């Protein structure tokens, strides 16, 4: 971990910390917590056909920046993390955002962003969302307020710590409460969820084996079933806690939107 060789990041205890070994894979419940919820907008306005049906049309019309941001954001007022896919440098963007132990902090922080993925051809000058990635060397991703203001461009080559710092700055600016405390708690919840997933999975297999060996009336089977129920309830409570912890409140916003006014460039 950059700047912390041999140490353990308190916010990401599973990140490789000078160790050559990969962290243990996450359990299914943690994995769902770590998933980035992407939006994949396609500009395909619905039109009515002469027969009265509504069909999607795919228009090759470049939208002005403000309109593009408005369509991207919809009713979501969280800050945006917008990524464009790339056919020629597959991996540089994903490397930061793929579910890996050392990306977990990014995954967890993503819940406070509206994450949007655009296709590679957004670079085509006639793509509806082209205005978001204009120029000779367009960024790979950017972080901004929902209306496009306060934008920070990233070229996909930045380190994880740089990315976290940029994400963190935006979160501090846009949310009324701190994400750092929530992150620490979420990491701890993930650990607990993993332990529960592991126990429940193993008990379910034991239960099946027990039933197949001695039948459903086996005393052992009843005991295992009871324990599964207890642990599953505990897991549900933890998931509810994760939801509560993640519920940060956005700050009220007064200033008018001025899309595209970049605050910084990280290339």
């Amino acid at each position: 971990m950059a700047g912390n060789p041999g140490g353990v990041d308190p916010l990401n205890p599973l990140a490789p910390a000078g160790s050559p070994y990969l962290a243990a894979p996450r359990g299914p419940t943690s994995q769902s917590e770590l998933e980035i919820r992407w939006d994949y907008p396609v500009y395909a306005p619905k039109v009515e056909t002469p027969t009265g049906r509504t069909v999607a049309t795919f228009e090759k019309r470049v939208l002005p920046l403000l309109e593009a941001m408005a369509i991207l954001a919809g009713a979501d007022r969280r800050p945006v993390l917008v990524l464009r896919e790339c056919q020629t440098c597959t991996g540089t963007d994903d490397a930061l955002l793929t579910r890996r132990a050392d990306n977990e902090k990014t995954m967890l922080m993503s819940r406070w962003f509206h994450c949007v993925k655009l296709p590679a051809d957004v670079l085509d000058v006639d793509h509806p969302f082209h205005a978001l990635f204009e120029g000779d060397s367009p960024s790979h991703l950017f972080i901004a307020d929902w209306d496009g203001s306060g934008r920070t461009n990233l070229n996909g080559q930045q380190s994880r710590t740089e990315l976290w710092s940029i994400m963190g700055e935006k979160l501090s600016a846009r949310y009324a409460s701190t994400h750092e405390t929530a992150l620490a708690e979420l990491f701890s919840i993930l650990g607990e969820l993993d332990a529960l997933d592991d126990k429940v999975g193993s008990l379910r297999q034991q239960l099946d084996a027990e039933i197949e060996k001695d039948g459903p009336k086996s005393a052992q089977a009843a005991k295992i079933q009871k324990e599964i129920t207890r642990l599953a309830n505990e897991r549900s409570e933890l998931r509810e806690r994760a939801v509560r912890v993640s519920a940060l409140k956005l700050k009220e916003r007064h200033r008018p939107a001025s899309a595209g006014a970049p605050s910084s460039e990280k290339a």
Partner: protein
Amino acid sequence: MIPLRGGGGLQPAAVLVFASLAALGRAEVQGEGRTPRPAVDPYTQGDPQAAKSAGYVSFGPFLWGDDHTSERVQAVLGGEPLIWVETAHFRLGSSLDEYDFPSDRIERKKLEGELARLKERLSGLKGKVKKLDPWLRLHLYALRLEDLYSDFLREFALEESEFPGPAGARPMGRGPYLGMADKFTVLLLEKKSALARYTSTYCEKAWEASFRYYFTKSDGLFCGLSYDALEGELQNDLVFHYALVFLVTQNLYGGFRGYDSEGPVWWQEGLARWFARKVDPRCLLYTAGKDETLRDELEADWEPKVRARVGHAYFPSVEEMLAWKDPEEWEFSRHMMAWSRVDFVLRRDRAKARALLMDLREPIPWSPERPREELLAERSRNALQSALGKDLAAFDREWAAWVFENYAKR
């Protein structure tokens, strides 16, 4: 889970379980990006005679689904490098990338067999194959889909010529494709994002892993899958093939005698599993619930497990199974039980299997008096009783006896 349409909804195909085997993931940086595809199929050189000999109707562009063509799909998916082919019963689009020849012995042997068959059809396929390029993968999947279609017909003692059937006879649907007017469409995408863009544009909601959908206007059934929804050890061609068979089987069943509604769920899942296990019986894809890890392949030897349960008289009655809903909520043993019931039907008597399929897909007229759910349940119950010539309790008993007699003890 998705809006009902055309008289019934399609399940989201037990969304490719994020299998939890490992998040070890893919190579961090692949470096070179995606291999470009030649515009013309290198194995037929676009020659119409060569394409026909291979069993192809077209390499596109063609009408794909309701109000959209393959070209429009390409436009919506942006930079996704799609290639297309139309076979006798399917239209297939693929953006699958190059695939290294596998090291797994079973997968290797399976591929060698398939490639040998392809060589007989594709004059341009010569020599030892070390990598499956995108066009070769398209040919392989076209072959696999047509194989599945033939297998479906064979297992249920059906003939192509029966569809849509003569007027006045027992209705067999609106068109020649098992009763569907349009061919079955299949989109195999490398990236989840591409499937999400397609489904959000044409299927009402974004789905990243897999999806089935009914196009009402063209009367066709669609199935889409993304390869990178499979993670860790599951990301290989064998598992992807398994997933495809699992999903397309449900479309063949849902489309049989015309699409109106699906189910019963246990039968549909069991049937999909039965055909998918022919691809690789070790694979347990779609057996883990939402909070569960996919089990080890040691748990995939189902005959002794089902037999043991039968031995303890611990199994669900078919009456109970008729009430089973969302397979994502099922415990592991339900998948085995559903598969085993189908195994019982299909391994014994094809004429009876056919009769059951016909009855399970008997069109249900719309009724203002009775809820559709109730009519569907009634159809399932009647089908099982009439096609198998016994009441449901007798079906349970016969199945149990058959399991005890035919399944290995260990």
